[in-house]
């Protein structure tokens, strides 16, 4: 039998970069989230090379550690919501309820060997046009696992969180909550979100949902070699 053809340069580079598959055509270009630019520049070789593994603030960079997020890891993914149709419960106006949302994150790119070290849900809301001034008081966010079938009711509530103001992004830590701690990431994550207003008949709109996932791939993160005596 013929030996498999030796990998071409692109396949060899893919292998060296620990990537399962190469690019399939051009990606759907979307704006690069500022947090990802910040994390990249924090580790940019030009900056770290100058101080040789020092961050711009002079702190020594530890390998396989994401300084800015304070967790171990060598892979950071910004995962956009795949978007499931907003579920509006029974006639909103009659019951004074606000819409709920189902967000879906595709985690199939995460290898089973990778160990999640941070899973941060990031939400941006916008006020739905209301004549009255924005209500004072706190909103309350609840996050639950959403059923697999469209229209299935939400599963167990994972967390409740106060939202002081809609202008600021809302962040919720899901590690150890959305799936068992130390477990591999699931293939996909469906969440049911509800935002209770401080005053009736005032609702908000979910403008954007994303998941910031940091993982540590032990195959690429060898412990620091002991300094040679």
């Amino acid at each position, binding site marked *: 039998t013929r030996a498999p053809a030796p990998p071409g*340069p*692109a396949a060899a*580079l893919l292998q060296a*970069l*620990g990537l399962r*598959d*190469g*690019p*399939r055509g*051009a*990606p*759907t*270009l*979307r704006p*690069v*989230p500022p947090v*990802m*630019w910040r*994390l*990249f520049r924090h*580790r*940019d*070789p030009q900056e*770290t*090379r100058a101080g*040789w*593994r020092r961050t711009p603030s002079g702190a020594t960079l530890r*390998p*396989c550690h994401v300084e800015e997020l304070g967790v171990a*890891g*060598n*892979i*950071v*993914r*910004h*995962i*956009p919501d795949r978007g499931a149709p907003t579920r509006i419960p029974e006639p909103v106006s009659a019951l004074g309820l606000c819409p709920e949302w189902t967000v879906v994150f*595709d985690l*199939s*790119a995460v290898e089973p060997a990778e160990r999640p070290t941070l899973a941060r849900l990031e939400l941006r809301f916008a006020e739905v046009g209301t004549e009255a001034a924005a209500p004072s008081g706190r909103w309350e966010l609840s996050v639950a696992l959403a059923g697999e079938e469209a229209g299935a009711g939400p599963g167990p509530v994972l967390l409740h969180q106060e939202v002081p103001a809609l202008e600021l992004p809302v962040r919720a830590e899901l590690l150890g909550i959305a799936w068992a701690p130390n477990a591999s990431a699931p293939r996909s994550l469906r969440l049911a979100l509800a935002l209770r207003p401080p005053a009736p008949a005032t609702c908000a709109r979910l403008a954007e949902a994303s998941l910031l996932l940091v993982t540590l791939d032990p195959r*690429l*993160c*060898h412990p620091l070699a002991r300094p*040679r005596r």
Partner: protein
Amino acid sequence: EAEPTSGDGLGGVCRARRLYVSFREVGWHRWVIAPRGFLANYCQGQCTLPAALPGPGGPPALNHAVLRALMHAAAPGAAGLPCCVPARLSPISVLFFDNSDNVVLRHYEDMVVDECGCR
């Protein structure tokens, strides 16, 4: 894009040589956001004496490598020369779109050769 090897084909003294990896060259420039490429560099050169001895500020030579260079000087057929290999490496980080349209930042240890040494 690599620095040409010097005339005698043996590469002169063991040292780091320039090697620039351009993602455009492998057709990845549409999904690698940053950097456009990186200086990976490579090691090449002879580890005969005195190159096998530590240069000023260079990486410390290994006693074994010096011994082998000595042996090679005394009896060239006895044992080969020490090898010119990376002695100090740096990491790089790559920001790219993956096939699920996620924006990914991956950190890779040992991707850039900073110094070479005889081992």
